[in-house]
């Protein structure tokens, strides 16, 4: 019995190590490529760069368009996050705490947005943005992304769970709805709002399809779109390609490492599993 248990454990641990190696290898290989002199990238199998040089990082940050893409991504992702949270917190509070005619029906219409594939809307959306004069602009990238029925769902559910005593006490004090939201509900929901902000930012940073369709000039490209253009710029410079890729993924990777728990709870809440 005892030996059998250890055998299972041994197998499990070997498998875990193997999977870690397989899952870690591509990123490590990308880092290793980015840190070597350009000539050594096509020199056959060499695991560790020798010498370690930062030329590729320096070059892509000082020459070429990567800094432009980076700034565009920061601007659009921040704007999407702030606008999404702003309009969705208000709507979620209204749906959760206020009573008005048609609230339920309206809420379920919004929830339909969760299951409806966004991909099927891109043609009329593009036409709309085009006719608004926003095609190939950062505003055009940002606006359609501020609608998030998923965030609405998570926040409304959170507000629903706040004990009614809090609200009644505030009402007795003569507080108006705006004040109740500001002084009672916002402080209580800080964690879930941060979690939603982080995953909204990540989603906007990584969004490919919509910016890909709406942006055409280099100066308006975000990271995921701009990176696809780099091959034309650099030709076959693998160290620089990998350095650009790593820089493009760095902000979200840092966010994940810093807020691992929040990111996890945000994603779980988004699937309705927990929150």
């Amino acid at each position: 019995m005892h030996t059998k248990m250890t055998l299972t454990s041994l197998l499990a641990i070997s498998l875990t190590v193997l999977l870690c190696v397989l899952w870690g290898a591509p990123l490590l290989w990308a880092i290793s490529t980015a840190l070597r002199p350009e000539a050594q990238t096509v020199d056959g199998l060499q695991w560790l760069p020798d010498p370690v040089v930062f030329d590729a990082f320096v070059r892509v940050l000082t020459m070429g368009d990567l800094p432009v893409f980076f700034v565009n991504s920061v601007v659009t992702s921040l704007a999407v996050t702030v606008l999404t949270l702003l309009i969705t917190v208000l709507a979620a509070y209204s749906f959760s705490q206020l009573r008005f005619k048609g609230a339920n029906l309206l809420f379920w219409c919004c929830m339909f947005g969760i299951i409806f594939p966004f991909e099927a809307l891109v043609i009329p959306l593009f036409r709309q943005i085009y006719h608004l004069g926003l095609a190939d602009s950062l505003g055009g990238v940002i606006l359609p992304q501020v609608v998030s029925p998923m965030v609405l769902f998570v926040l409304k559910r959170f507000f629903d769970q706040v004990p009614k005593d809090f609200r009644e006490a505030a009402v007795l004090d003569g507080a108006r709805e705006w004040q109740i939201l500001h002084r009672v509900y916002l402080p209580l929901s800080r964690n879930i709002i941060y979690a939603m902000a982080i995953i909204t930012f990540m989603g906007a940073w990584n969004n490919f399809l919509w910016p890909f369709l709406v942006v055409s000039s280099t100066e308006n490209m975000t990271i995921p779109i701009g990176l696809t253009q780099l091959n034309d710029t650099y030709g076959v410079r693998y160290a620089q390609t990998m350095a650009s890729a790593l820089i493009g993924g760095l902000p979200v990777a840092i966010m994940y490492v810093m807020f691992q728990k929040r990111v996890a709870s945000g994603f779980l809440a988004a699937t309705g599993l927990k929150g």
Partner: protein
Amino acid sequence: MDNQETRNVTPCAQTQTGQASCSVPNALGKQLTPWVMLAPFLLAFLLFFVIPAFQTLQLSFTDSGLTETHGYVGFANYIELLQDSSFWASLVQTAYFALLTVLPLTALGLVMAMLINRLTRFAGLVQAIIFIPNILPIAVMAMIAGWMLHPTFGVVNLVAGTDVAWFNDPDFAMPMVAIATIWWTVGFNVLLFLAALKNIPQDLYEAAKLDGASEWGIFRFITWRQLRPVTVMVFGLQLVASLKIFGQTYLLTGGGPFDSTKVVLHYMYETGFINQNAGYASAIAVVFVLIVLLILLLQSLITRFINRRG
């Protein structure tokens, strides 16, 4: 109606401080508040969801270009779609991708979560290693996968001693896109399974161990039973996600070689944005929506069936 009247009265009756909250403009303000708070979201929802959704349907009955609107053509687009072999081929490619990814992503996610759940140390680290690819932009994933699988300098060919042009070979292209996708996204499923594993009451395991149940028995009668709902959910999420595939094939293979990886959304993109035939592309979009909604409906029916059986 009843509800509304009481609401007009309550502020006066309930508020001890009285004065301001009893005045008529304030009562009206109270009725408007919900709508004022909803307005920004609803406006955005209307502009960027509801209207485009109806327009997709409307456009699908026209022969409009990408930016200009042309007249109605009835069901012509749909009839053409039925006879369009490129469309059917794109459906087959999408289904092939789903076949290659949905089950592996679900099963591997479950296995990885169970492995991590066993760990007494380094569980956070292992989870991070598996999850990190998932938070990277799709272009970053594609660049790394493209470099790993490069025909001459790629590490995979160097290690294996081969010189296969993975993404240019009709036999290998889609399976390689699938493998890259599995590497990229399985961490998300691990996250969901781990949360579900942590929710299983520990006393179930303790009772089973006291009864001398084998590890396989514990898995089969406790873990698997408790995980069934989340497994169905992950499977469904994965199925829908695989139908929405576009970026991976577009970036890794460009739909080739010989259209062997041209999926439905790629075909829709090409029709609508490259060939500027928005009417026909909208018909593709409508069919796409119907397929997605049908799968979600089936999934919820299956979930209900499983939950009823307990």
